[in-house]
């Protein structure tokens, strides 16, 4: 209920209550008070009439008595009056019929017991009628008869009926009138109070409310102008100030928000925020570009299922559960479990584009805290790392592969050699390495140009790769030097089998090779070293294979040669 209605209603309600209670209380008391007042009145009247009538009776002035009775009878609350002289003869009565008759035959309602009591005691008596609508009074009227002595007197009496019903009626009428006056007065007071309230309070409160309404609807220029010098004016002053400050803050906030939005929207990073349950609240344009979704498709949706690679999530959950020592439910928690603990979680993830292709991203998740330090959401910032991964791969390619033939270079060769040594050591097995040098390559280079030479090298790499198993490593160490690692052979290694492979390679390379229309004839010399027989270290094995290759060349081109320590001058000289 609005103030405007509440206050008047309350006032009228209280007015009504006060009037009703007042009426009820007075009404109850009224009957008793009227009876008491009537009794008092009766005694005074009886006494008055006695003092007036006794001398008249003594003088025999019946006319005087009658006029007195008539006068009394004219009073509205007098229901009846009868005056009997000492002889018992009615000398005045409100009922003319009774006149000059003995009082006993009057029908006015005289109680002879009371008459007797009154006369014998020479004192007044009063009584209420049974229905309490009448008050009856008796008083003696005594006349001295001095002819019979000083004490001789005889008494008549006066009977008086007071109409209580009339008095009650009058009083009730009065009471109703008073109640109406009180009600009217109270209502008037209520209305006055109301007007005062309206002008001093309600109207001004409504003004404040209207202004605040306007303000809520966006009118920042709305101002309260009340006037006066009271609490309400003070409140309106405070509100105005508050609004002013708020507007200022709001402008700053809007500006900041716009700046933030611009940053978020224009950032190259995909920015996605969620509430604590994982429902997406922000989805910036970079995220739209990255994932191919419109933000309206995803805002208010649960995040991980939509654009995450589910098997990856499940896999990560297992790892994370182990790391944090708690059981984590795969899903949104996988992403935020660490952030919840106040840690920064940064990881590579796979996003699924709307069209289904996978996008590798770097995603960092941070918790968002409100002013009370409670987490109200999470912020995930991600960027596409496809190019980075490609670059890394490229770099690796540059570092470990020969750019011309795409075969592993010396670095990767050494690495693989070491790996192979490690494997052979653990398995107590053997393997062999070939060092291969092309015969007559310099001649091709000099006569057909570097371009043809390069193409020849590419062709040689192809032939080598095709000549060995997939598990074997073919590498180019530089120039026309190639190596081959042939791992996975048991310790009862047969040199003949190795020799057959070397022979096969030499045979393949001895065939005519056609490059750019030129038919080229080259050949190859191969030096072979066997682990662990010819060395336990990579450097030893390389040196010995190289040495064997030179020995092969010395023995005539187009042949293979096993390293022979006895022919190793370096060993002999070192001895």
């Amino acid at each position: 209920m609005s103030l405007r209605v509440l206050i008047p209603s309350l006032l009228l309600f209280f007015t009504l209550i006060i009037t009703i209670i007042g009426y009820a209380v007075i009404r109850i008391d009224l009957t008793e008070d009227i009876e008491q007042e009537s009794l008092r009145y009766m005694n005074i009247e009886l006494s008055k009439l006695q003092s007036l009538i006794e001398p008249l009776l003594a003088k025999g002035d019946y006319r005087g008595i009658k006029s007195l009775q008539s006068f009394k009878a004219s009073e509205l609350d007098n229901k009846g009056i009868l005056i009997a002289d000492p002889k018992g003869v009615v000398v005045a009565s409100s009922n003319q019929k009774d006149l000059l008759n003995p009082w006993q035959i009057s029908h006015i309602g005289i109680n002879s017991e009371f008459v007797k009591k009154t006369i014998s005691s020479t004192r007044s008596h009063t009584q209420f009628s049974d229905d309490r609508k009448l008050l009856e009074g008796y008083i003696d009227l005594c006349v001295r008869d001095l002819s019979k002595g000083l004490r001789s007197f005889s008494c008549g009496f006066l009977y008086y009926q007071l109409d209580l019903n009339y008095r009650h009626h009058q009083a009730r009428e009065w009471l109703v009138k008073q109640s109406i006056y009180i009600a009217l007065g109270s209502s008037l007071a209520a209305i006055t109070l109301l007007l005062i309230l309206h002008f001093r309070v309600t109207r001004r409160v409504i003004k404040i409310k209207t202004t605040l309404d306007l303000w809520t609807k966006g009118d920042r220029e709305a101002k309260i102008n009340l006037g006066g010098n009271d609490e309400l004016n003070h409140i309106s002053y405070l509100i105005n100030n508050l609004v002013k400050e708020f507007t200022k803050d709001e402008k700053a906030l809007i500006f900041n928000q716009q700046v933030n939005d611009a940053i978020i929207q224009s950032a190259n990073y995909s920015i996605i925020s969620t509430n604590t349950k994982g429902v997406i609240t922000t989805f910036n344009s970079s995220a739209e570009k990255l994932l191919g979704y419109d933000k309206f498709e995803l805002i208010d949706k649960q995040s991980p299922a939509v654009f995450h690679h589910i098997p990856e999530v499940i896999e990560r959950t297992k790892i994370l559960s182990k790391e944090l020592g708690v059981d984590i439910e795969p899903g949104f928690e996988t992403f935020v479990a660490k952030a919840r603990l106040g840690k920064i979680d940064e990881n590579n993830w796979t996003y699924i584009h709307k069209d289904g292709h996978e996008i590798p991203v770097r995603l960092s998740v941070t918790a968002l805290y409100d002013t009370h330090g409670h987490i109200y959401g999470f912020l995930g910032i991600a960027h596409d790392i496809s190019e980075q991964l490609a670059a890394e791969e490229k770099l690796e390619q540059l570092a470990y592969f020969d750019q011309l033939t795409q075969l592993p270079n010396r670095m990767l060769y050494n690495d693989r050699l070491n790996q192979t040594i490690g494997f052979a050591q653990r398995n107590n097995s053997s393997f062999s390495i070939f060092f291969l040098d092309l015969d007559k390559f310099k001649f091709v280079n000099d006569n057909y140009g570097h371009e043809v030479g390069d193409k020849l090298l590419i062709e040689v790499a192809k032939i080598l790769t095709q000549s060995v198993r997939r598990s074997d490593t073919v590498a180019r160490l530089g120039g026309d030097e190639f190596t081959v690692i042939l791992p996975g052979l048991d310790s009862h290694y047969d040199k003949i089998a190795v020799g057959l492979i070397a022979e096969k390679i030499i045979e393949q390379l001895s065939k005519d090779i056609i490059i750019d229309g030129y038919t080229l004839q080259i050949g190859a010399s191969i030096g072979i070293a066997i682990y662990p027989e010819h060395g336990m270290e990579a450097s030893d094995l390389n040196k010995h294979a190289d040495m064997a290759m030179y020995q092969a060349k010395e023995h005539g081109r187009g042949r293979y040669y096993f390293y022979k320590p006895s022919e190793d001058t370096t060993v002999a000289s070192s001895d």
Partner: protein
Amino acid sequence: MQIQWTLRSTAKIVSLFIITCIGNIAQAETLRVGTTLWPGYEPLYLAKELKEFKEDIRMIHYPSTSDVLRAFKNRILEAAALTLDEVVLLEEANIPVQIILVLDISEGADVIMARPEIKNMQGLIGAKVAVESTAVGAYVLSRALQVHDIGIHQIALVNVENSSHKDAYQKELADAIVTYEPVRTQLLNIGAKQIFSSLEIPGEVVDVLVVHDDVIQSHRDQLLDITKGWFAALKQIKDEPVDSYTFIASRMKITPREAKESYYGLSLPSLKKNKKLLSNTPDSLATTFSRLSEQMKISGLINPEVKPKILLNDQFLP
């Protein structure tokens, strides 16, 4: 009924609370004192004039003792100044009263005045005598007749109230009048002769202040106040006689000198005397009262069957 009772009690408590709060504004119970015009009662009016009464005391003057008695009997009055024989009449009518103050003792102020032709009491035989038969006059007359051995039937009685005594004499409605001051002085002034006075029955005509039994409780403060005022007025008469008698004379319609003379036949008992008269000693008023009652029985003024008892109350004497 329960609600009615609660409402009524609440209303009473509230009104009582309000009355208590504004007690000074609320009307205190008034003590109404009825008197006739009699020098013995005048100090009460003097006290009122001097504003000796701090409480609400209303002095009401009645034309005759009969009116005072009637009003007192009908409870229109709380207190009345009456002669002792009138108190006996109240007791006879079974109205419980207490005497709280002895106002005066008539020592010549109650008289029988006669036309100059009547020389003495014996001259009354066959004469028409005016008397207020309901009041002290009846007692004075009966005692006078008794003292002078005259039968009641030897005279003719006319009932005339005190206020009409002078009139009755002037209009020759009676040959003799049983009366008292100031009518005595007034009649002396127009040639009447005094043939009997209360000096012949010393101590029998005593004026007292009587109150209804219950008034003792309901008007305690006013009763204390009236006795205090009474003695203050007596002191005033003694200290400032000229002013006092001038005031009294103005009320009694006589000259200040006559007013002063009207007190020659009166004795106004002091506080000490009052204490003695209202005490329980053999010298007290009780002795006079019972002697008076006996006398009234003999004179036929009261029913011989009744045994009047009087309550003397000295607690209001200052």
